[in-house]
């Protein structure tokens, strides 16, 4: 039997098998942010093991609550900052240069096909869009990753989701992944890797692929992976041009991580999107998904466009296209958080920021902000938010708040209508 992408990556990185079903793999990168890393740092200090395996392979950002909102978040930043300095970690992104981790690190070219990456953050699966194995882990795994550059995983079984058909106008990667999660459930890929394949994925740009892979965890998946191809090589080319003679040569090299034609999948699901409509969540679980049309007219208090799922430049462009020349409804408040300084700058140059402001949006600095309900847009009890984020858990954006997940196009249309609404980009 042939091998999946994840199996090939594991075979290249395995350094131990402490049990039949457990593999210890070598890590190419360990990513860190200020929420889950400080407890690991403090624990390492307490154990007398304040060391790092390789400062060049550790990438650090303060992104979740930035600027610090109180003394406690300031302390988290301080611990991280001092630790990065102490160990000579060069790739440290502090306020002014910081952005949402899973948008910032790809932009910096930190992920390559075939890489193994961990981070103390469940949406680390995003980086699988580059043909890497990238997984969210807890603080102890992160701690060992920092110390030793290794992590354990069960032998990864893979579900192949073969996305076929043609995406209708106004239906986006976010709608695709919501429909997939609605189909397989929040537990549908637990302990498994999801390979996103098929003509629809092949045609997607890297930002759309990141949106797909970002939400693999919402179906329980360890990682979402897209096979490396010319599109990923072109995205990475500025970072790899000194390593390869040509993009063709890079692609030929990365092709060793393509899945074999007879790869052994735990399951293959054909998912035809030709009749897909824009989707939205309705409950407190990301698999509670319905077409927007069935939820149309649902009142919202806040609209939030941002996060590692949909805070990239293509997302802001789509939202601004829907918003241009309009005003947000006077019953809602709306916030946009460009995911990184680069996205913010591009949005400024392209006039998108002006569009957002003219329509009545508040524009914040790059940060996770409202997504996890820690700052920049927390809901009051009983309030409802239309959000381009990835989690609608009870209390996620503030105690007693309700979050409806949707694409940037739908969120923008909802801001104008004041209630959940399909965007005019959806023409069916």
């Amino acid at each position, binding site marked *: 039997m042939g091998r999946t992408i994840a199996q090939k990556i594991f075979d290249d990185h395995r*350094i*131990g098998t*402490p*049990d*039949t*079903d*457990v593999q*210890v793999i070598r890590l190419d990168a360990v990513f860190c942010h200020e*929420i*889950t890393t*400080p*407890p690991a740092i*403090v*624990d*390492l200090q307490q*154990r007398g*093991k304040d060391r790092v395996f390789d400062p060049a392979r550790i990438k650090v950002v303060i992104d979740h*609550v930035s600027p610090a909102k*109180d003394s*406690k*978040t300031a*302390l*988290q930043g301080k*611990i991280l900052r001092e630790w990065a300095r102490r160990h000579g970690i060069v790739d440290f992104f502090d306020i002014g240069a910081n952005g949402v981790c899973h948008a910032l690190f790809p932009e910096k070219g930190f992920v390559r096909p075939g890489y193994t990456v961990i981070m*103390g*953050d*469940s949406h*680390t699966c995003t980086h699988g869009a580059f043909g890497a194995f990238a997984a*969210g*882990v*807890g*603080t*102890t*795994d992160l*701690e*060992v990753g920092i*110390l*030793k550059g*290794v992590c*354990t995983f*069960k032998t990864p079984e893979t579900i192949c989701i073969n996305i076929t058909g043609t995406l209708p106008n106004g239906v986006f990667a976010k709608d695709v992944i919501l429909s997939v999660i609605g189909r397989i459930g*929040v*537990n549908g890929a*637990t*302990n498994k890797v999801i390979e996103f394949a098929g003509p629809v994925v092949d045609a997607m740009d890297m930002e759309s692929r990141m949106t797909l892979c970002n939400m693999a965890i919402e179906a*329980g998946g*360890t990682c979402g992976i897209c096979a490396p191809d010319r599109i990923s090589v072109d995205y990475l080319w500025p970072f790899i041009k000194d390593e390869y003679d040509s993009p063709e040569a890079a692609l030929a090299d990365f092709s060793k991580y393509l899945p074999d034609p007879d790869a052994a999948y735990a399951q293959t699901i054909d998912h035809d999107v030709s009749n897909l409509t824009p989707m939205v969540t309705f409950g407190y*679980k990301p698999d509670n998904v319905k077409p927007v049309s069935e939820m149309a007219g649902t009142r919202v208090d806040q609209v939030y466009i941002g996060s590692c799922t949909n805070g990239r430049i293509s997302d802001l462009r789509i939202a601004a296209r829907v918003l241009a020349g309009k005003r947000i409804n006077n019953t809602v408040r709306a916030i946009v958080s460009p995911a990184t300084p680069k996205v913010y700058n591009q949005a400024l140059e392209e006039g998108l920021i002006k569009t957002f402001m003219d329509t009545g949006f508040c524009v914040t600095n790059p940060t996770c902000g409202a997504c*996890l*309900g*820690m700052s920049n847009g927390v809901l009051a009890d009983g309030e409802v938010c239309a959000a381009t984020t990835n*989690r609608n*858990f*009870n*209390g*996620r954006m503030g*105690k007693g708040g309700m979050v409806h997940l949707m694409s940037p196009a739908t969120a923008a249309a909802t801001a104008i209508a004041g209630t959940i609404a399909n965007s005019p980009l959806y023409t069916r």
Partner: protein
Amino acid sequence: MKSFSGKALFLDRSDINTDEIIPAKYLTEISRDALAPYLLEDLKFDGFDPTADIADKSVVVTRANFGCGSSREHAPWALEVNGINLVVAESFARIFRQNMFNCGMMAVELPVDTIDKLFSTFGGHDTTVETDVDGGTITVSAEGMTETISFTISRFDADLVASGGWVDFADANY
């Protein structure tokens, strides 16, 4: 090795996520002990009252996909600082399960039928769980009823429990 025995807390719902176990707003805490009062604060279902129901419990018995969502290890820590080192469930989310063993705690999976039986026989009663880690059994008892159930954890997970977690194990072996 930690203690895995004591009174049981029955949580009769699937897909309890880590935001419900410990809400994000408490992630600013650096010390684990500070999480103690907030365990399961946002978990809402009929018949559950976090303030009254958690006190003096040492074992959680629950349904499928426990610990899904955010990777926060604050979830096992919030259990740990409340004296809960064992969760028995039909299944776990991957990161949560790994976090438990990484901390030298136990996440034990039992078949659906067994979990159903535990809920129907012991749910709502003052129930105690005695765990024999080496023997791989839990003995559940309440008001004259007793049931001994075997479980299996992998050799690797057992090593983590015995050595108190993954940091020391990894530093010694890799």
